[in-house]
């Protein structure tokens, strides 16, 4: 990191990755995000796995949103970090959705539960990251995923704890 960036705390370095709106590129998004996150030594490996899965789910939804309205705009993955957090925004140009109106599944032990193969992505995202925000409209959706962690280079400062009780 250049010394000039360190001396300008108001400016957070952001990295943008644009991927073609096709499933075969989601692995690349996972790779880039986990690689960037592993630079943050205070973030435990299992938390990096959580972020990676959340990003993957958001990218899957973004690509499906594009496919649903037959557009092939790129999906943008925007990485930024601050002293206490990492943030990944996954942005699409689909027609939006209502995150509060997801179809409900039958109870988990109900045999009818097996008729539902979809709809697990958003609940997973909500559980995996520390903070999530869905900004969605008919012009597109931006899913902001936040992981709290200690400052770069300080492994003792991880303020986030994993949900070991799950």
């Amino acid at each position, binding site marked *: 990191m250049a010394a000039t960036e360190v001396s300008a705390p108001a400016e957070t370095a952001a990295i943008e990755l644009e991927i073609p709106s096709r*499933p075969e590129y989601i692995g690349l998004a996972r790779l880039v995000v986990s690689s960037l996150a592993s630079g943050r030594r205070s973030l435990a490996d*299992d938390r990096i796995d959580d972020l990676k899965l959340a990003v*993957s789910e958001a990218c899957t939804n973004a690509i499906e949103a594009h496919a649903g309205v037959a557009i092939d705009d790129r999906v943008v993955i925007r990485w930024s970090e601050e002293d206490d957090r990492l943030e990944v925004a996954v942005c699409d140009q689909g027609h939006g959705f209502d995150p509060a109106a997801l179809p409900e599944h039958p109870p988990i032990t109900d045999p009818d539960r*097996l008729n539902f193969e979809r709809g697990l992505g958003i609940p997973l995202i909500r559980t995996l990251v520390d903070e999530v925000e869905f900004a969605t409209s008919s012009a597109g959706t931006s899913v902001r995923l936040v992981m709290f962690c200690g400052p770069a280079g300080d492994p003792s400062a991880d303020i986030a704890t994993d949900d070991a009780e799950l």
Partner: protein
Amino acid sequence: MDLGLDVSEHGATTVLSVRGEVDVYTAPRLREKLVELVSQGKHTIVIDLEAVDFLDSTGLGVLVGGLKRARSHEGELSLVCTQHRILKVFEITGLTRVFAIHDSVDGAVAAAD
């Protein structure tokens, strides 16, 4: 991104060993393989997830569909998994109560017999 799918027979049980990453790109191949096995009359299936590096909700959905398919033929589909990061996805979604999850192929095959 590579998805490995190896089939082996253990008595009346078919073991499908999955290797690599299971996501929206690779999950259709897993689905096809499960459909193929069931259509060949292999209704007692153990899916070994020990060599899976990554599993997302699409992969979970395919496993749920496979279980439904096996049960519709009076069969069963169980899993082998000891990796914390993979098990966690089943735990979060409650699917640990839907699938029998074993810690070894031998244990899963013995339970299926």
